[in-house]
């Protein structure tokens, strides 16, 4: 508990801010001592970095900047963002197209997507109904409308 408090104090205010009791703890506790050493090393390094000379803007920096702004405002100039956005849209459209094609290929050849659904009304087709040891009746019941062509009506034995 005390170690955490002392380490936070070291970070925020430095070693000089410690009370005599905390300082005693710092001397006695190897963890806190190591922490103080590392922290002092980091702050020294950061301080050295802050003292480095900052690069000066080169001669005519602002003139070049203003020229670039003028060029950008000239009619017919398309900003790089335009190309970026256009490129993004093209990629998105291509992805959607590829996805749709893949989906279409993955679907079975029959089914509601590929074929029109059958007409709701069901007319019995002339088909053979078989049951074991029983005469097969190809029915015309209910009555088949006149326009349905019935090719053969016969009894079959199996």
């Amino acid at each position: 508990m005390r170690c955490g408090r002392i380490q936070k104090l070291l970070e925020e205010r430095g070693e000089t801010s410690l009370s005599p009791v905390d300082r005693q703890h710092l001397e006695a506790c190897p963890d806190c001592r190591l922490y103080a050493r590392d922290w002092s090393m980091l702050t020294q390094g950061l301080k050295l970095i802050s003292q480095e000379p900052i690069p000066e803007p080169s001669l005519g920096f602002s003139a070049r900047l203003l020229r670039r702004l003028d060029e950008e405002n000239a009619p017919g100039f398309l900003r790089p963002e335009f190309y970026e956005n256009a490129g993004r849209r093209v990629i998105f459209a291509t992805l959607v197209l590829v996805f749709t094609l893949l989906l279409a290929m993955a679907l079975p050849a029959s089914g509601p997507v590929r074929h029109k659904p059958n007409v709701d009304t069901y007319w019995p087709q002339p088909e053979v109904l078989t049951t074991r040891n029983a005469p097969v009746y190809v029915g015309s019941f209910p009555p088949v409308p006149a326009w349905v062509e019935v090719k053969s009506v016969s009894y079959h034995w199996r």
Partner: protein
Amino acid sequence: MESNAQERLEVEWIRRAQQGDHEAFGLLVEQYQRRVFSTVFHLVHQQNEVEDLVQEIFIKTFRAIRSYNFRAPFGAWVARISVNHCYDYLRRKRSSRLNYYWQLSEDSRRMLERGLEPQQRESPPSIEEQAVLKDLVKKLLDRAPAEDRMVLVLKEIDNLSVEEISEVLNWSVSKVKVRLHRARKRMLADLKRCR
């Protein structure tokens, strides 16, 4: 009195720049370029990249200047654009998590350790020790996540207060404090791991 006149002048430049006046914007650039150079240099540490980045920052500033509403100081607003731009740059150019510490020569490492011994701490470090230490801390900063680096640079190198950092990063003061503590801890842990 003089600062008031300067402020009024600055407001006039900003208003003119908002109407598309490049000349007025040029005056603002002249006024803030050193500050932006300093922030970018400390965040990026790439001397050859600084000028390009600063130019991009000012172009961004000009494009966004119409949205500036005079609530925050103009300097803090520009600093926010600079920091965000550097943040994007750092995320793009994320340095690899290679351990640089072992790239220090054996002599340098020994020198560094010797310079940090308690009995030696009273005497100022030699120029060689300073160079080694600066190099190590720079490398640790390069390895740190972009957010840690930003908050540490603004606090420890640019010497901004927590309140100023909160204005620049658009974070709450408590968030800045928490992030700062976490960034320091992470950097110390990184240092320990290198040992």
